[in-house]
């Protein structure tokens, strides 16, 4: 066995943004105000993001803005930040990330839904509280998208990538001391990834996993690649700093040349 389990660890789980969010912290002192207050701050931050940006809530600033009842300048500033980031994401992905005219999660009517970007962005933003956790390791997992940090005296986090055909099986393991691992696919929610060219659900690939320095962009690239399908791999290969693993529709596992071997 590795030394991973040797460092004391504590986990917290909450449901927010419609997702199970789990936080694991490794360190010598895991009780008391230091750690607990910061974990609470991270969850509170995510709940705030959900209140402002949820497409499921009529009361969210996002919904009010779409109805024309709220100007962007009058909304919580994170709405304008997210709208700007979605524009950047569309450009970075040649249009394969597209928040416009997605089916409303409740009615199916086309609407602006930035959720595909919000999750990664929100988790990364909330994790800023952990900058104060000097000497600790931490692992944030938001519904299958992961952001980690491990100090020099702790082992790297071992992130298992689930098999798209059997979520109980681990297909590969990636070791990370810092950075993100994001996976997009249809294993748990069916065909929910929309091809922006056809505006219809696509199952061009079974799953795409992207690892790199930020969860915001790893998640966006994984979502865009899942929509793009078979041509995604050469495109991902050209994205600096990020590495990808694609499970094709026929079940082949393919990786970019830079995929970390473990």
């Amino acid at each position, binding site marked *: 066995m590795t030394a991973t389990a040797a460092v004391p660890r504590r986990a917290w789980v909450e*449901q927010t943004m419609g997702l*199970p969010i789990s936080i694991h912290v490794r360190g010598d002192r895991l009780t008391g105000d230091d750690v607990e207050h910061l974990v609470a701050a991270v969850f509170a931050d995510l709940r705030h993001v959900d209140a402002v940006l949820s497409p499921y809530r009529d009361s969210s600033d996002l919904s009010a803005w779409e109805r024309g009842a709220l100007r962007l300048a009058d909304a919580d500033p994170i709405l304008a930040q997210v709208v700007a980031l979605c524009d950047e994401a569309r450009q970075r992905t040649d249009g394969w990330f597209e928040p416009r005219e997605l089916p409303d999660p409740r009615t199916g009517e086309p609407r602006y839904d930035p959720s595909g970007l919000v999750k990664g962005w929100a988790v990364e933003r909330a994790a800023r509280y952990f900058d104060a956790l000097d000497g600790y390791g931490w692992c944030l997992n938001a519904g299958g998208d992961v952001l980690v940090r491990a100090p020099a005296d702790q082992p790297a*986090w071992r992130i298992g990538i689930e098999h798209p055909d059997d979520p*109980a099986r681990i297909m590969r393991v990636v070791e990370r001391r810092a950075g993100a*691992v994001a996976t997009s696919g*249809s294993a748990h929610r069916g065909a929910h990834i929309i091809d922006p060219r056809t505006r219809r659900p696509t199952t061009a690939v079974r799953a795409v996993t992207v690892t790199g320095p930020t969860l915001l962009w790893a998640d966006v690239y994984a979502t865009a690649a899942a929509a793009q399908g078979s041509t995604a791999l050469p495109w991902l290969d050209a994205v600096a700093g990020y590495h990808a693993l694609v499970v094709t529709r026929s079940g082949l596992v393919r990786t970019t040349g830079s995929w970390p071997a473990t």
Partner: protein
Amino acid sequence: MRRISLWLLSTVAAVVLLFTYRTSTNSPADASAAPTTINEQTTTSTPGASPTPTTSPSVSTSPETGTSPTSEPTTSTAGAAKTYTGSVASTRWGNVQVTITVTNGKITDVAVPVYPTENHKDQEINAYALPVLRQETLAAQSANIDTVSGATVTSDGYLESLQAALDAAHLA
């Protein structure tokens, strides 16, 4: 040995949760397909081992069913087998506690003294699932992962995720 056992406990808790969920859609006929016996088994403990060795009920398949091709003999060499008891993990779906027996550094038995038993269905399910759990645990020993990346898990689907189990093992 403590490091190993703590990790194994988390893996086993994972598998318990998985099976508790997955088999919940099985028909009663499926659940009764693998008859089991519940044995009392005493293991020889080493003083000072941590967590505290205990005697616990273990789950094993009936010899004639032969559903565990990879399982090892549950009879252990005197002095070599130790049983480790995990804390009771409180989950949204009920409490789970796992004990494992380690012999010469390898897990040789798994018991689940606490698992969701809210209804008769749960009990049927566990009668089927727990023997299979032993095989899964043996197979899972090499993965040794901290967390899982996969297609988006929603709150409703959390229980079927391996992540739920990895969390359960570390909840305070």
